[in-house]
């Protein structure tokens, strides 16, 4: 495990959710809110199209931080996020992070998930045990 210092960038995670990802995430999570899986319904309530689940985007932030510990699920101790812009399928999401504190083998990472110009997840703070 490479040593991390305050100010270091974590490896970037890039994911392009395909057209049917919201349906698979709905099945996996149990959240079948039609704004995520029904394009017509989403447009009817004023959205540009069916949108990604905010907790899916948070899941990507968790994945990027867990990767710091080789993907060990025990490593992620805490994750706090604010969900802001709406994510859509078929457009790349980029998760980036900066180490903001190091305490022994525990690091705190400030993480952001963006899609084009839209910030999906802001002010995400992850505590990872390395």
């Amino acid at each position, binding site marked *: 495990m490479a040593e991390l210092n305050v100010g270091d960038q974590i490896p970037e995670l890039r994911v392009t959710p395909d057209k049917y990802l919201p349906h698979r995430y709905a099945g996996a*999570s149990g959240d079948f809110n039609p704004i995520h899986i029904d394009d017509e319904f989403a447009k009817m309530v004023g959205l540009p199209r069916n949108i990604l689940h905010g907790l899916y985007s948070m899941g990507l932030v968790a994945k990027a931080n867990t990767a710091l510990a080789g993907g*060990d699920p*025990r490593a992620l101790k*805490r994750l*706090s*996020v604010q*969900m802001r812009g709406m994510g859509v399928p078929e457009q790349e999401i980029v998760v980036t992070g900066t180490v903001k504190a190091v305490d022994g083998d525990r690091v705190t990472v400030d993480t952001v998930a963006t899609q084009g110009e839209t910030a999906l997840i802001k002010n995400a703070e992850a505590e990872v045990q390395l």
Partner: protein
Amino acid sequence: MTLKTDAVGKEWPATTYQVGREKIKEYANALGIDNPVHFDVEAARAAGYRDVVAPPMFAVVYSSPGVGPAILDPEVALNFAAMVHGGQEFEWGEPACSGDEITTSAKCLSIEEKGGKGFYVFETNSVNQDGAQVARGTWTLIVRGV
């Protein structure tokens, strides 16, 4: 309109979720997580887990049924149509593994108006069959135009 805050402090009956291997696999696949500890029992045991282990954010799968009744409670009177999920926090304890029975209780921490929006904050506490805490969640739901 004044925000109804009677439900602050209210607690809801706990729900129990049984974690299964196929459900963990389905969740990991949706997130594109490929660590074998989420798919293969031998790999999970070699890494020190009782059974196939869930990714951390699988917490939403076992704790959502606990927070659902709180969000829909008429006493909370949350306008579902104007709601967005504005923030979420999880703190994790014991890992969640296949076979675990995880019991989640929910509580309303606060209901506040800020800048014409209603901020509803709920807390979930999830413990496994041994009484060990698996996750504590803080759910912030924002309602526009209150």
